[in-house]
Structure formats: C-alpha cells, structure tokens
C-alpha cells in the first residue's frame, strides 16, 4: 500500500516538474510596480520588480533612482500558481525607497539578462507632493482618495453599429491590488432596444497602471441593436464593501499615507460601503442600407458560412430527402432565418417548413455559433437529378455590404415509385420529424345526404299525446300495484274482510247448486240447506259464528235491526219457513223449496246492498 502511494506521489511530482519545465521554457516578463504613485516627502514606497515566468533568473538590475533614497532591499519572494492545469511562476524583488524632495520623478526600467536575452521592465512615474499640497488634499478628501484606488470602466467595442450588428459591452471593476473588497453586487445596465447574449461569467485578472497593480473584474455581454438611432445604454452600477481594521490607539500620520490600508492589521473591523456607477453610453446605430439588398435577405447580420447536406441521395418519387443546412459564424445566431431554397420548377419538389436548432459555441471575444436547419423535400418526379439551389444572404457590418452565399445543387438519384413499398425495419431519425399542417383554404363543409335519417320532425315528441300517455300509464300502474298489493295483504291477514268478501259468492253458489236439481233434494234437506246458507251468509257478513245465529232470533241481531222492515220481515219469514219445512212432514214439495230458494236469492241480493 505504502509503495503504491509513493509511486502516486512520484507521478504527481513528475507531472509538476514537466509542467514547470514547460513554463520555464516560455518567454519571461519583467513588471515593475509600486504600492502608491502619489505621496509626500515623508512617505516611503515599496518598489517591486516581478519576474514572471521564471524563478531561476538572476536579480534584475536596479536602475539609478533619481530623487529617491534606497532604504532597504531587496526582499525576495516567489510564487507558483496552478490554474486549470497551467503552472505560472513569478519571483519578486521588493525595495523600500523614500523621496528626497517634492516633484515629479520617473523610476527607469529594470533590466535583466537571461539565457542571452535582455529583458526590460516598464517605467513608473511618481508624484511627490510638498506638505501644503498634501494638507489641502487631506482637507478636501478626508485624507484618502479612494476614487484612484477603486473605479469602474464601461465601454463598447464599437463607436457606431448597424441594426442587428454585434456589439461587445464590457464592464470593468478596478481595485488596487491588496484592497480587501467584499460583498460585490453588480446591477446590469438597461439594454432595451437591444437583444442581449451573455458572454460567460466574470473574468478576473491584474493590470498595471502608472506602476500600480490593480485587480480587475470584467463582465462582458454581446448586444444586438434592433432599431436605428442614437440608442442609450443606461449606467451599470456596482456596490461593495471595503473592510478596514481600525487601530485602538490613533497615531498621527501623514494624510496621504494610506490610513485605510495601514489599518488592516490590528484593531476592529469596519465595512466602508463603496458605490461606483458608470456613465450612460450613447451608441449611434445605423439602419441597414437599402442599396444592394438581395431579394433573399432575411435580416441576418454578421459574418457567416453555410454548409448543406442532403440525405439520402437515392430515393423514390415522393420519398423525403432531409436537407441539413448549417449556418455558422459570428452574429446573433439565434435570430437568423433559413437559407432560401430556389425552385426552378415548383412541380419538381414538395418543400416542407424547416425545423432549426441553434448552438452557441464561443462566448469569448464574440458570440459565435451555428444554426442547423433541417427541412424535408420530396421529389415529385423521376426526372429530378439534383436538389434545388440554395442561397443565404447576410449583411457584413465589418465590410459594410451585403454578401450572398450560393450553394450548388447536390446531385441525387430519383427512381419512379414502386407499386409495393418494401418492408421497413426501422425509421430514420430525420423521418420522425413531423411538420405542422397548414390550412390552404377555408370553406364550409359539404351537404348531408343521409336519406335514412330524413324524416319529418315537425311535431316534437313532447307535444304528442303519446308522450302524456307514456307518462300516465306507468304512474297508474304504480298506483294500481300499491292497491293490489294492499288488497292481497288484507286477504291474507283480515279474516272478517275475507268472510265478508266471500259471503255473497259462496251463498249464491250454494243456492244455485240446490236450484239445479230441486226434485232430487229431499224437502227437509232442502230447507235445512237454505237455512244454513242464509245463516252462513249473515254470519260471514257480520263476522260472527253461525252457531250464534242459531241460538238467537235473527231479527234480534243489532246489524239486522238497522235494515228496512220489509227486508227483516222477509228474512224472518224465510227463516220461519225453513224451520217449519225442516220439521213438518209433507211440506217439502219441490215448488215450495224453489220458492224458498228464490226468496233466499232475493234476500241475499238485498242484504248485499244493505249490510
């Protein structure tokens, strides 16, 4: 395990050495800088000469310092940094110098000889102020001119542009190297009247201005004016905080000495808000010239190339060929339209609207990208031998003129359609692209001719009598069912109702049986049966037992008493006749029995109505 780790470390070290060696082989650069370039006679400055690209060089030769005394130095420092796999090395030699008197001085360039070549650094101008001037600055600006240490720049790469032309808008935020800037907040400018395309994230680097090193945060975006005229780009704004550590014991210091920066070490932390706002940019935008505008120009501005491919190149009549047209270049790639397909004979091809897909592949210096248009064309006859010619026109803002790219037709082979289509085992990806169907014309739909449904509906169904019958019949049926069911239930449960209901029919039935053969019935038996029929009938009607009627006189029954007198008399007479006939011999002639039966029938009919 340990052996394995050792070998990994060795591999990493080898890589590092190779990279460092590679960087050593590169050109070296000398950069001279100071920590301040405006100071008083009482201040000292740190003068640093940085050798970028090597750490093995000799010490650069210090020039003659006119107007300064060397206090000490050099103190040597070296730094190696690896960013994205790239190794950069630098070595610094710092001297502390002090001005001899007030005035404007120049520190001459450092020189260095390395590998037989001579390298020269930049020179630095320095202002040394006298005491009165430094007091004035102290009184007017609080002793610290932060504007020189933190500032912004906002610019376009073009002083004027055409409509839809690509303009690079750059915002730079500068702050002197070493300043503890934090909480950066950037407010974008208002770019109405422009299409905007971001150019990646922020970029950070160092620059030297007047011998002072600044850190720069840079934000870039591409904007495309959509109208002509003097277009305004509103100011961009950045807010941040400067962190300062204030000392507990205040010391009398030179006002132009960086009290802020000297306070970084020790004391409590404070945040000083800083706001920087740029000026408004006015960009004159010219309209696209009308002179020389090609007929097929569709608004593309920039510099483009076009590639066109056809696939497949051998088809049957009516089969689709996918034309892939790739427009590539610098400009607003998102908004460009497809190349023009120029059909010499409109009957040769059916052309479908294209589908497009835009990709931006470079956002560094410019917006560069490609837009791929895929359109389907279908040859309509076997005489077609090549695809249509295609052209793409654009306005080149750099040349200030329109350009048209013509693409020659692509040879294809078109065979006459076969009767039977071959079995297709797969679908090409391009064939799955569906197109929207566009409506060619608008018209009403044809008439209806279904005679099976052609009948007169003049009288609505709800107005026909049958409608009401159909409503009434089920209703009546339900009501009848309710009553019928109640009736059936009563028949099963109510004995008096059943006896009363059956009394008449039973009595009539029994009487008719006697009546059928009166001569065969013995007289006594006939009267007995009539008496039974009558007593049974009355008992059933009144829901009492027949025996109870036998023992009391019929006329004494309360319900009978309520009957008309004639009925009572007839009933008593019949019952007496039957009693007499039953017990008296020779009184049973058939005629007399029949009279008794008729009398009984009359009585039953009468009682049925009156009881």
């Amino acid at each position, binding site marked *: 395990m340990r052996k394995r780790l050792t070998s990994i470390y060795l591999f990493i070290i080898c890589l590092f050495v190779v990279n460092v060696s590679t960087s050593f082989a590169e050109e070296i650069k000398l950069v001279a800088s100071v920590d301040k370039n405006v100071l008083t006679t009482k201040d000292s400055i740190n003068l640093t000469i940085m050798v970028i690209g090597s750490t093995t060089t000799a010490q650069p030769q210090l020039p003659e310092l006119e107007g300064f005394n060397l206090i000490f130095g050099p103190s040597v420092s070296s730094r190696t940094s690896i960013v994205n796999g790239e190794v950069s090395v630098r070595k610094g030699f710092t001297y502390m110098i002090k001005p001899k008197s007030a005035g404007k001085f120049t520190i001459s360039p450092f020189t260095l000889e390395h590998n037989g070549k001579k390298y020269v650094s930049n020179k630095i101008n320095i202002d040394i102020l006298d005491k009165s001037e430094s007091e004035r600055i102290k009184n007017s600006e609080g002793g610290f001119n932060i504007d020189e240490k933190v500032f912004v720049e906002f610019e376009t790469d073009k002083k004027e542009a055409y409509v839809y032309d690509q303009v690079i808008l750059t915002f730079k935020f500068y702050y002197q190297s070493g300043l503890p800037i934090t909480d950066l907040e950037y407010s974008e400018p208002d770019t109405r009247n422009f299409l905007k395309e971001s150019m990646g994230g922020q970029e950070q680097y160092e620059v030297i201005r007047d011998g002072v090193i600044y850190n720069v945060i840079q934000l870039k975006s591409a904007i495309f004016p959509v109208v002509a005229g003097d277009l305004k780009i509103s100011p961009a704004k950045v807010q941040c905080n400067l962190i300062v550590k204030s000392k507990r014991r205040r010391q009398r210091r030179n006002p132009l000495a960086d009290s802020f920066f000297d306070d970084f070490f020790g004391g409590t932390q404070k945040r000083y808000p800083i706001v920087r706002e740029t000026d408004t940019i006015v960009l004159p935008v010219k309209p696209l010239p009308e002179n020389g505008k090609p007929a097929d120009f569709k608004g593309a501005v920039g510099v483009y190339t076009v590639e066109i491919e056809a696939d497949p190149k051998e088809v049957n009549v009516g089969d689709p060929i996918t034309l892939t047209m790739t427009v590539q270049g610098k400009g607003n790639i998102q908004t460009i339209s497809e190349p023009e397909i120029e059909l010499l004979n409109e009957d040769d091809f059916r052309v479908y609207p294209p589908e497009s897909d835009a990709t931006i592949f470079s956002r560094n210096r410019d917006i560069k990208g490609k837009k791929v248009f895929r359109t389907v064309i279908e040859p309509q006859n076997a005489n077609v031998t090549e695809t249509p010619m295609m052209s793409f026109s654009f306005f080149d803002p750099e040349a200030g003129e329109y350009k048209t790219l013509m693409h020659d037709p692509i040879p294809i082979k078109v065979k006459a359609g076969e009767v039977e289509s071959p079995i297709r085992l797969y679908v090409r990806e391009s064939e799955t692209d569906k197109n929207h169907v566009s409506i060619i014309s*608008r*018209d*009403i*739909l*044809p*008439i*209806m*001719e*279904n*005679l099976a*449904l*052609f*009948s*007169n*509906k*003049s*009288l*609505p*169904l*709800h107005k*026909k009598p*049958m*409608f009401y*019958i*159909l*409503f009434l*019949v*089920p*209703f009546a*049926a*339900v009501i009848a*069912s*309710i009553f019928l*069911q109640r009736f059936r239930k009563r028949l099963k449960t109510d004995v008096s109702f059943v006896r009363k209901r059956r009394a008449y029919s039973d009595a009539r039935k029994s009487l008719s049986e006697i009546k059928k053969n009166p001569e065969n019935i013995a007289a006594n038996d006939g009267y007995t049966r009539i008496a039974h029929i009558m007593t049974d009938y009355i008992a059933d009607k009144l829901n009492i037992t027949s025996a109870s009627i036998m023992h009391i006189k019929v006329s004494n029954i309360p319900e009978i008493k309520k009957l008309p007198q004639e009925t009572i008399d007839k009933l008593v007479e019949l019952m007496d006749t039957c009693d007499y006939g039953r017990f008296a011999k020779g009184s049973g002639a058939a005629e007399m029995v029949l009279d008794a039966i008729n009398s009984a029938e009359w009585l039953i009919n009468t009682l049925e109505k009156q009881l």
Partner: protein
Amino acid sequence: MKYFALLLIFAVQLVINPIGFSDDIPQSEAIKIFTLANQEYANAQKLMSQKKMEDALKGFKWASDRYGELVTAGFVNGQLYYNLANALYRQGKIGNAVLYYNKAQRLLPRNSDVMENIRLVKTEFADKELTSKVPGIIKAILFWYFLFNLGEATVFTIIFYILLAVAVMCYIYIRMQWLKPVCFGLGIAVVVISSTLGLKIYNEECKQRGVVIAQECNVRYGPGKEYEAKFKIHEGAEFIVKDENDEWYKAYIFIDIRQPEDKEDSSNEFRVGWLRKSEVGII
C-alpha cells in the same frame, strides 16, 4: 313480471315509432325534392370549382328554393336546415345561413359539420361575437343538455321514467332490499333529466332567439321608425326576443360596445332595443 316487460317494450315502441300523426307533406315526396336539391347543389359545387360562378350561383339558388319549399311545407329536419344553410351561404346570405345552421344545430347538436360551418360563417360577421357564450364548466356539468336534442332528451326522460316505474313496481311486489337504492338512483336521474327537458323546452320554445338577416339592422328605442336608432348591428348578429309589437321585436342583444368618447376600451353587455321583423329571422 312479463307484463311489465311487455309494457316497457310497448312504450318504447310507441316513442320510437309514434303512430297516428300525419305529416303535412308525404315522406316520399319530401325525399324526392330533397334528393333533387342535393344533386343540384353538387352540380353547382362542381361549376364553382370550374370557376363558372354565374351558373353555380343559379344552381345554389335552385337548390335553396327546393329546400325552402320543404321548409315552407312544414318539413322539419336537421339535414334539410343544414343543406339549406349551405346553399344560402353560397349565395352570400350569411344571416339566413346562420339562422338555418342554428336551426340545424338544435336538431343535430352533436354534428361536427354543423358546428364547424357555424364557426366558419361567424368569422365573416361584421360585428364582434355578439352572443353570450356558455362557460365551459357549465357545458361539462350539464353535458347531456348540450349533447342531446329535444327529441332525444324526451326519449331519455321517458325511458328513465318507465324504468323508475318498473323498479318501484318490482319493489312493491318482490320487496328485495337492493331495489331500494336502484329506485332512489333512478328517481334522482328522472328528476335531473326531466328538469333538463323542462329547461330545454323553455329555452327552445318559450324563449325565442333570432338572427339578423338584413345586411344592416337599426336597433331603435321603440317599435316604429319614428323612434331614433340606438345603434346598428349587422347580418348574422344574434338576439333574444323579449316582446313583440306588430312589425317589431323587442330584443336583448349582447353586444360589444365602444363608447364614442372612449376609443380604446369596449365592454360586453346586454342592450335592449326594437328590431324590425322583416330584417330578422327567428331560430
């Protein structure tokens, strides 16, 4: 039970094939006229495609006259109204076409051809959409109201009513407990469907809707030419009749109003006014 089944079959038979009502025009004669008119329409359509517009127009007019004969004779049929509307549209009579398309839609509410033609013809109106639209949610909830015509709604009402009666009778006789929820469900269905039928009858027979058939129609403050015109509506505009007086209809018109002093905003609202009967048709 078999008696109830027989009763149900008899009832349905009576509804489907009603008996005892004679048409004003014999069916065979109506079919003959309808077929001839259809043939003439088809010929005119061919002439139109051959750009023989004058002859085509004559053909459409002849066909619309034949369809009109049937309509005048009291023949009521969705296909007849639709074909007549097509023939009128071909002659440029948009208002009359809309009138008969609407009549056809009442009888053929699910027919996509009728709906499509109404939609197309409405795009040619001079006025902005004037009829108040029923919200989609109402259409979804009361779908059967919009799905069935009056006759179909009547048939459904009767069928459900008879089913309810049969279910109630079954419950009376056989007393099965599961019949109770069936009866309850059918009862609710009958209430809902019969309410819909009532609403449909009210909307189609008690509430008159009309269409402007003249190219331009003045909506006046009162029933007479002596009254000032409030505003003008154009061919195809729809309205609801509120009242009538001799030669005039008092109508609700759902209009898109733009006040003269306000050139930007407009508002949709009902306005009441009087329309001349000769300039409008009742659906």
